[in-house]
């Protein structure tokens, strides 16, 4: 029982002084990548919206939401 209590106290990483800084440095990397991902997500939704407008303008029928199996099949065959 006391062993379990001791284990509960020990942190997963060496969270003494040094550990905090190392974690912070690697978190910076993660945040940079995530910020980039979110910027790309914004751009993607904007492109989707524009293409939707252009589709309407060109008078083509709206694409129906595809069933998942069909979409997966489309993706695996190279376009």
């Amino acid at each position, binding site marked *: 029982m006391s062993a379990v209590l001791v284990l509960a106290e020990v942190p997963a990483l060496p969270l*003494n002084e*040094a550990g905090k*800084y*190392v974690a912070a*440095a690697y978190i910076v990397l993660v945040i*940079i990548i995530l910020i980039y991902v979110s910027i790309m997500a914004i751009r993607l939704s904007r492109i989707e919206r*524009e293409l939707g407008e*252009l589709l309407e303008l060109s008078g083509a029928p709206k694409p129906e939401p595809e069933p998942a199996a069909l979409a997966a099949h489309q993706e695996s065959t190279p376009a």
Partner: protein
Amino acid sequence: MYGKGLRSLSIVTVAAMALALSLVFFYAPLEAEQGFLQKIFYIHVPLAIIALCGFVVGALFAIAHLRTRDSSWDMRSYVTIHMSLIFAVGALITGSIWAKGSWGHWWVWNEPTLVSFLIVFLLYATYQPLRFAIEDPERQSRYASVFAITAGAFVPMNFIAVRLSTAYLHPRVLGGTSNLPGSMRLTFMVSLAAVTLLFVTMCKYELTAKHTRAQVRALRRRLVGEDGSPARRGRTAVPAMGTQAAGRSGL
């Protein structure tokens, strides 16, 4: 097609990153002097090296642009420099964190790499304002290329000058990459490869996105005519992109 091969590239990048991080935390031994803090080395130094190489590659693309007048080279130059700037910021922040952990200060002047970086960062931070400030797209690309080449030549020159000015006065704070034991060297090499792949993937991603947007705009112009396209939101520093000639060979 800028996006060709992007999928395989990104998968390789993920694998390399996972391998690198595992090596850093599970394989590389603790360093004698700095202990656990030294592990920042495996992310800080690759970020720095890749950012610098990126700036030089951006200069090479700029030379290609001036030689061939093909605007796709200018686009590559712009994206490479932009991405290198982001990686340089990452290198500065991680270097600052390392300095704080080692010395207790957020900034140290006697670490020549950090100082050179700051100067290079300040220089390239003017790249986008320069582009923003020139309206004619052809002139913008041309002037940006001249700047990229000048700045690319500046990077090594700057490093030499700064290193000369600090070398004989203070010992290096953060240590170099010479005489590393084998396991550390392996970890470092893998980290370097992973960050390189990350850089290339992100650049390719960015190029594909810009190209796609240019294609959408061209499609809009064709469907609606010139007056139909909405005015470009604000000013833009993005180089104009042709849609047919550009990117036929991918990145």
